[in-house]
């Protein structure tokens, strides 16, 4: 269990940095981060299922200017870790446990937005130190202050991951016996609904005229084709 949590923390750190601070090659997207985590823990399919459900949820929240979107990266990574670790501990498997872990992780992921905000606020302090390094004529010192910013983003990512995982580890084992049976009646429909909610939010917020018309036409045509063929 400790090894799995540590692996998760390492991936949360790498993917968390890709999210804002470095590269932006999108390994931080849930559809990549969750399967990557689950692959490291030996169950890639669990991550793929979580990735599909989380990927579209907050895709409409753009990281524009100073806006900080919810941390879907840590939600995806932490819920993958929780589903796999608790699957072994509770001797359970299937979509119900996966959904319970995800539904606990989603609201806890709000913490990520707060931590990210703190990291960016903390980095304001670096400005003063860059300015004073330049006053001293130390360009190397100024460069170093820039790289120090990575520490705050790293801490924000791993902190969010830790809170979701710790929250999940304390809540899910308590809720699992109570909800296992009830969730089995609706798990398949919830699994379908989560990405559809994400698509609906994108549809409602995307800045394109006639977006709903385009969407309905595409949906209708594809559906009829699949139904008739």
């Amino acid at each position: 269990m400790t090894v799995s949590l540590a692996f998760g923390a390492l991936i949360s750190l790498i993917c968390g940095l890709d999210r804002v601070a470095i590269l932006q090659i999108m390994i931080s997207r849930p559809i990549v981060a969750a399967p990557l985590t689950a692959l490291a823990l030996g169950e890639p399919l669990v991550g793929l299922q979580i990735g599909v459900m989380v990927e579209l949820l907050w895709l409409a929240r753009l990281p524009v200017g100073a806006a900080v979107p919810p941390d879907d990266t840590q939600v995806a990574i932490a819920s993958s870790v929780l589903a796999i670790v608790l699957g072994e501990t509770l001797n359970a498997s299937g979509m119900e446990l996966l959904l319970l872990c995800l539904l606990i992780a989603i609201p806890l992921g709000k913490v990520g937005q707060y931590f990210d905000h703190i990291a960016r606020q903390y980095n304001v302090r670096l400005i003063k130190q860059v300015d004073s390094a330049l006053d001293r004529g130390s360009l190397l010192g100024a460069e170093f202050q820039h790289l120090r910013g990575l520490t705050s983003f790293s801490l924000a990512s791993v902190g969010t991951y830790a809170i979701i995982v710790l929250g999940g580890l304390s809540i899910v084992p308590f809720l699992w016996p109570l909800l296992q049976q009830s969730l089995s009646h609706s798990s398949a429909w919830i699994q379908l609904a989560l990405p559809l909610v994400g698509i609906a939010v994108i549809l409602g917020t995307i800045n394109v005229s006639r977006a709903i018309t385009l969407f309905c036409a595409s949906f209708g045509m594809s559906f009829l084709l699949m139904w008739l063929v």
Partner: protein
Amino acid sequence: MMTISWRTRLYIWFRLLLLQASWNFERLQGIGFFYSLLPGLRKLYRDEKLIEVSRKYVGYFNTHVYLAPMVAGAVLKLEEDQASGIADPVLKIDDFKEMVAAPYAAIGDALFWGGLRPLAAGITLFLAIKGILWAPLIFVLTYNLVPTVFRTVFFVRGYRQGMESVEWIQKHRLPDWAIHTKETAIVILGGLSAFMVFSHLNQQQLPGWLGLFTLLPMVLLGLVARKGLSTLLLVFITVASIFLIGLFWADMVFLIAS
């Protein structure tokens, strides 16, 4: 004339991958932009002059991360010209930087975050739903194709053309491309939704035509989201509704059976 070697430019390009390492609410990418340009500035200036020019770059700066290389390339070119004494005074470089940063940010946000990302995600989810484990890798490869071209070609263009690179951007009508990409993303997401609903109904052995009714709640949710209701709330309303309907349905089935 002073020139910046290709090695230094390559080094700057790599440093631009760390542009947002010290992102903060006061100067946003300012320190990162200085950090990226520093190897070039070191080649052009020495001692006090280098510190003086550096100070100019640690100020406020914010643009889209994939279009920042173009601004950096152009600024390098202008600094190079200025160091050789063939260019305009310092103010013009600052003006140029400020003039292009915001429009480039708007273009990048619309094209990449608003268009390309949902498009790539939509295509990948088709594969992921089929259980293809390579889907995430395909996402990373297909998505990064365009940003990598922007990061490299635009950096080279920016350095080659300086201020004239703005005309090059205008000529390529990127805002129009952003709209086309968003429209394509919507079409793909429409097809993806239909595919998910159709597959699900097949698995549940329910009649396929029922799936057409999915459009109504989706459009309603979209309109509610447009009014500003948070995704988190929408998720919990939807999940709670499905959960309660599931329980009710199970009870009904049990009652009828007994």
